[in-house]
């Protein structure tokens, strides 16, 4: 294989994923509390709540403290005149090549949490699905979007 793509996603992405995981864990806790009371009311087996608690805690610890850093370290991308080169994955490492002539359109997306950290996600659509580069800083994302859009327009074949 060729060597890995060179560009990293924004370092703020780590903070972003950490906050996202905290929020998600909070919702899991709400479900857990409901489950605890439901177990009291309907006589469910006693072990359900502690087992769920352990599961939720271990996922939360992994998702909050370890996963964001790992994703940031493993995510790489490159955009050249000819192609878009993506490399990511924790347990399954995936390398995707998208020829520039196959790109149909590019979007940038930004939810409220992403906006808080000044980040955007670039999504690249081909006739066979969409690929995403997550959490780039706003400037990088919008210049990348414009660049891809410009490069994709040069050769416009039919589907």
């Amino acid at each position: 294989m060729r060597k890995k793509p060179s560009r990293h996603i924004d370092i703020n992405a780590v903070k972003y994923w950490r906050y996202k995981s905290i929020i998600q864990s909070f919702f899991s806790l709400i479900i857990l509390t409901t489950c605890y009371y439901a177990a009291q009311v309907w006589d469910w087996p006693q072990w359900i709540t502690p087992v769920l608690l352990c599961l939720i805690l271990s996922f939360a610890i992994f998702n909050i403290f370890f996963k964001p850093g790992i994703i940031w370290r493993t995510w790489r991308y490159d955009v050249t005149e000819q192609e878009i080169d993506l490399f990511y994955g924790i347990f399954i490492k995936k390398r995707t090549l998208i020829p520039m002539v196959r790109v149909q359109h590019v979007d940038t997306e930004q939810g409220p949490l992403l906006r808080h950290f000044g980040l955007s996600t670039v999504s690249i659509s081909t006739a066979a699905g969409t690929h995403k580069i997550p959490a780039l800083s706003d400037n990088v994302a919008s210049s990348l979007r414009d660049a891809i859009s410009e490069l994709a327009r040069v050769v416009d074949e039919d589907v």
Partner: protein
Amino acid sequence: MYKPQRLHPLAILYFFIRRVYKMAQALIPLLVLAIAEAEFRRWLLLATPFILLLFFAYGVLYWARYVFYIKGQELRMESGVLIRKKRYIPFERIQTVQISAGILQRLLGLVKVQVETAAGGKKAEFVLEALPRQKAEELSSLLQAKENYSQGSHLGKAAVEYTLSTRSLLLLASTSNSIGVAIAAIAAVSQFNDIFTSVHIWEKLGAFLKDIVAGEAGLIIFLVITLLFVAWLLSLLGTVIRFAGFRMTRDDKKIKISRGLFEKQQTTIPLNKIQSVRLIEGVLRQPLGMQSVQVVSVSNIDAKSEGSMIAPLLPKSQLTRFMGVFLPEFILPSPLQGLPGKAKARYYLVNILPALAIATLSAVFIPWGFLAFILVPLAAWLGKKQYQDAGWQVAGSSLVLRKRRLARVTTIIHRNRIQSLSVSRSFLQERKKLNSLTIAFAFGTNNGHRVKLSGLGDEETRVIVAWFNRST
């Protein structure tokens, strides 16, 4: 030039009947309930003519407002009584044009034209419900002729034709994979009956299990076999109805397929819209040396299966000749390259592990469930076949991937049709330095289609990626 024009006047009758039919369908439960009331019956008798008249008037208006025409390089349609709708389709966006005739159209001696673009969705973008056949074909050829063909073919102008013999049709039907669907349908119906004839379905089930244990299994086995046989006959009949009179022609621009006993299906696929070709060897067909050839185009008509079969059943010995005549752009380079030996374990494991899990569960929870352990050697055998059949090859601008789930499928695709190419490596594959290759191409609705081949070594992966990069 193609002037603005309406559908055939009989279309009024078509719209009318269709509307009445739909209305009746929706109201049947209500009618059944209310018909007992004398008051309601009288009211219904009075109202029906008015309602029908209203529907007919609406049909006339709808017909009068329904206009289609060609302007510049666009097919245009304007329709709607209360809400005016206009739809313009540029010729280069048109993927396929299909002419068909449902029962209603046949009664009226008309045909239906469906024009498809690459956009997603279940329905065709542009449907002309009722046209005389001659006009439909004129329009179809007009739309196809205006296409701009970037990939000229090296075939002459003369069209070549392929038909399905009666013997092949019967063989096709009797080895059809839709057997499963028919079984499910029968099972559903028989359960439905059960629920209605007896509320004590669980008692019955208990008695049924007792029968098995008591050794009165003969009758039950007989019943199951009869059920399977009926299911098989039904699917046979279905396939015969759908594929009777199969005829495929190719000229230098397009492939035309027509088939069907009651409902004539006619599909046109422009050659430059073909994304890839799939050779499918079904479980029952492979031992007979038979396979089907499917053309994958972006259109969404029958994207998954039958509409794009250009040869539903072809003997293996004839494949090379067939491809040479009909699709010389997609000739299969032989032989394929297999996978490295270290990939073998993965193919065994992904089949044996689920089988073991199922067998263990059923042995614990179901009486006689340990019989499910028969699945394990079967799974091992399937794994072995899957490993042996997996293969790839690159030749010129085409890539060939072959893999088996149950049926063996060989995909032939040109480099410029691949939308993206991914190489992935899981932490288990890391140890053995193996990769999985996924290619994505446009197929059917919006998300396209992916073909994944697991267990390629680093060197093989490098060759394929280098081949792919050559285009860009």
